[in-house]
C-alpha cells in the first residue's frame, strides 16, 4: 500500500514541478546559446531600436522569476497540497483508505523532500553552467589568459583540499554532524510546515490562513531560539576556537535538529491520528 500511495502522490505532483524545472533548463540553454554562439555584444552595441536590451531585460526577469518560483513556490505547492489532501474534504477519502496515517505522512514527506533535493540541484546546476558559459568569454573580454586562469583556479581548490586533508581528521565529528544535518534538514523543514498546518486546521474557520499565521509565528520563535543557541558559536568564533569546541557545536547542533525533527514527526502523526478536524 505504501508504494501505491507513493506512486499516486508522485503522479499528482511531478508534472508542475518538472515543468518549472524544465523551463529553467530551457532558459539556461537559451542564455548559454546566446553567450557562446550569438554575438550579443555586437548586437547590443549596434541596436538602435532598444529591442535587444528590452529582450535581454525580459530574459533576465524571466530567469529570475522562474528561479524564484522553483525555490519558493514549489515548497508552498507541497504545503498547500498537504493541507488540501488531508485536512479539507479530500481528507474524507485519504483518511478512510486502508492505510496507516504514518504512511500518508511518509509518502507526502518523501515526495516533497525528493523535489526539495532536485530543485536546488537543477537551479544551481543551471546557474553554474550559465556562469561557466559566460566566463568562457569573460577572460577574452578582459584580456585574461584562459590557461593561466584555470591553473590558478585549480591551485586554489587544491590548497583548500590540502588544508582540509591536513586538519580534517580533527574535525571528523563536526563534518559527519554537518553532513547528517544537511541530510535531515529538508525533512525537518517540511515536518515544520506540516505542524503549522496541523495546528491551523484545528480552527473552525480560515484554516489555511491560520496555518500560514502559525507558520509565521513558529518561524519567529525558531529564529529567536536559534539565535540564543548560536551564541556559543559566535563567542567561540571570536576566540578562534579549538577543534573540540567546533566539534561539540556541530554535534550538539545536529542532535538538536534531529530531536526537533523527531518531535515534529510525532506531532504530525498525532494530528493525523487523533486531531483531524474535517468540516
Amino acid at each position, binding site marked *: 500500500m505504501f508504494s501505491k500511495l507513493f506512486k499516486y502522490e508522485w503522479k499528482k505532483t511531478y508534472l508542475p514541478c518538472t515543468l518549472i524545472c524544465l523551463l529553467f533548463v530551457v532558459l539556461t540553454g537559451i542564455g548559454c546559446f546566446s553567450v557562446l554562439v550569438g554575438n550579443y555584444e555586437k548586437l547590443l552595441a549596434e541596436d538602435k531600436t532598444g529591442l535587444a536590451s528590452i529582450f535581454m531585460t525580459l530574459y533576465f526577469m524571466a530567469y529570475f522569476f522562474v528561479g524564484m518560483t522553483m525555490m519558493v513556490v514549489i515548497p508552498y505547492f507541497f504545503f498547500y497540497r498537504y493541507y488540501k489532501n488531508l485536512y479539507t474534504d*479530500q481528507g474524507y477519502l485519504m483518511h478512510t483508505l486502508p492505510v496507516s496515517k504514518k504512511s500518508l505522512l511518509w509518502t507526502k514527506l518523501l515526495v516533497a523532500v525528493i523535489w526539495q533535493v532536485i530543485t536546488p540541484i537543477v537551479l544551481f546546476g543551471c546557474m553554474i553552467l550559465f556562469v561557466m558559459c559566460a566566463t568562457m568569454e569573460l577572460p577574452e573580454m578582459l584580456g585574461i589568459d584562459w590557461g593561466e586562469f584555470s591553473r590558478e583556479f585549480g591551485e586554489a581548490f587544491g590548497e583548500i583540499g590540502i588544508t582540509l586533508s591536513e586538519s580534517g581528521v580533527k574535525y571528523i565529528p563536526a563534518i559527519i554532524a554537518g553532513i547528517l544535518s544537511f541530510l535531515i534538514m529538508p525533512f525537518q523543514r517540511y515536518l515544520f510546515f506540516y505542524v503549522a498546518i496541523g495546528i491551523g486546521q484545528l480552527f473552525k474557520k480560515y484554516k489555511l490562513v491560520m496555518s500560514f499565521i502559525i507558520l509565521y509565528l513558529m518561524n519567529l520563535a525558531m529564529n529567536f531560539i536559534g539565535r540564543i543557541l548560536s551564541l556559543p558559536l559566535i563567542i567561540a568564533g571570536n576566540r578562534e576556537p579549538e577543534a573540540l569546541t567546533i566539534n561539540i557545536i556541530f554535534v550538539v547542533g545536529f542532535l538538536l535538529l534531529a530531536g526537533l525533527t523527531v518531535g515534529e514527526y510525532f506531532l504530525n502523526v498525532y494530528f493525523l491520528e487523533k486531531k*483531524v478536524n474535517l468540516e
Partner: protein
Amino acid sequence: MDVNQQMGQMPNMPMGQMPNMPMGQMPNMPMGQMPNMPMGQMPHRQLPLLNEPMLPNQAEVSLLECKDLTKCYVSGRPALDHFNLNIEAGHIVGLLGPNGSGKTTLIKLLNGLLTPTGGEILIRGQKPGIASRAIVSYLPERTYLEAESTVEKLVGFFADFYADFDRERANAMLTALAIDPKSQLKSLSKGTKEKVQLILVMARQAQLYVLDEPIAGVDPAARDFIIRTILANYNPNATILICTHLITDIEQILDDFVFIKNGRLVAQAPVSRVRENFGITLDRYFREVFAYV
C-alpha cells in the same frame, strides 16, 4: 432484509411517486399515513418509543457495536453521550435524528475520523483502523474526490486501494448512466458527481456501507437512481447504514431505524413495527416522536 418483500408493500407504484402523493389521492388513509401534511394541521400525539435492539448473532462478532460511546468537543455538551448500539449484518438501517443530534459524529467515529472521548466503537470486534477501513465503504456528505481527476482515474484509484472493489460493476454502472469515464469530475454536474461517488462506494463488496445524506441536494429522478443503485448493489450479507433527513424517500427500503437525539439513542426497531403498531409511516413516526422528545 427482504427487499422484495418491502418493495412489495407498494405494488405497481413507482418509487418516486410514493412519498409525494397528493393528499387528495389518499382519502381513506389514517392520519399517520399522510406524511406530507403540515405539522400544524395535525394534533400531536405522544407515541411510545419503540426499542427493539438487534439481537447479537451468536455465530459471529457484531458488525457494529457502540458501548457507552461518548464524544465531547472542546466546548458545549457531548455530541454523543454514553451511546449504545448494536447492528448486525444483513440489514438496511436508517440512522435518523434532528440536526445536531450526533449522527455525523457517530459516522466520523465509525470511520476513524474522530476518536472517542469515552467508551468504544467496534467494527467486527476491532476499533476503527486499517482493518475496519478495508470492510467499511463510506460515502461522505461532501464532494470529497479530487475535482481534477477523471472518472477513469478515480475508478483505478479505488481498485488499487480496496481489495473488494469490483471494477466491472463500477464500469457497468457508469455505462448505464452514460457517464464518460474520461471526463473530469469538475466538468460534471452536482447530481452526476454524487452518482459517481455513489458508484465508487457501492461498487465495493464491503461488509458495512455508511451513506451520509446520499440523496440530499439532488433532484427526485437522481434520488430514484441512487435508491435503485443502493438496492441493486445490496449484498444480503452486508449492512447499509443510511443517514438522512429525507425519510419519506428511503423508508421503503429500510429494514430498521435508529433514532438519535442529543447524542443518545432514542429508539431502535424494525420499520415494520411502526406500521404494525401504529399504522403510520416512519416519517410520520419520526415527526411525532421528535415533537415530544
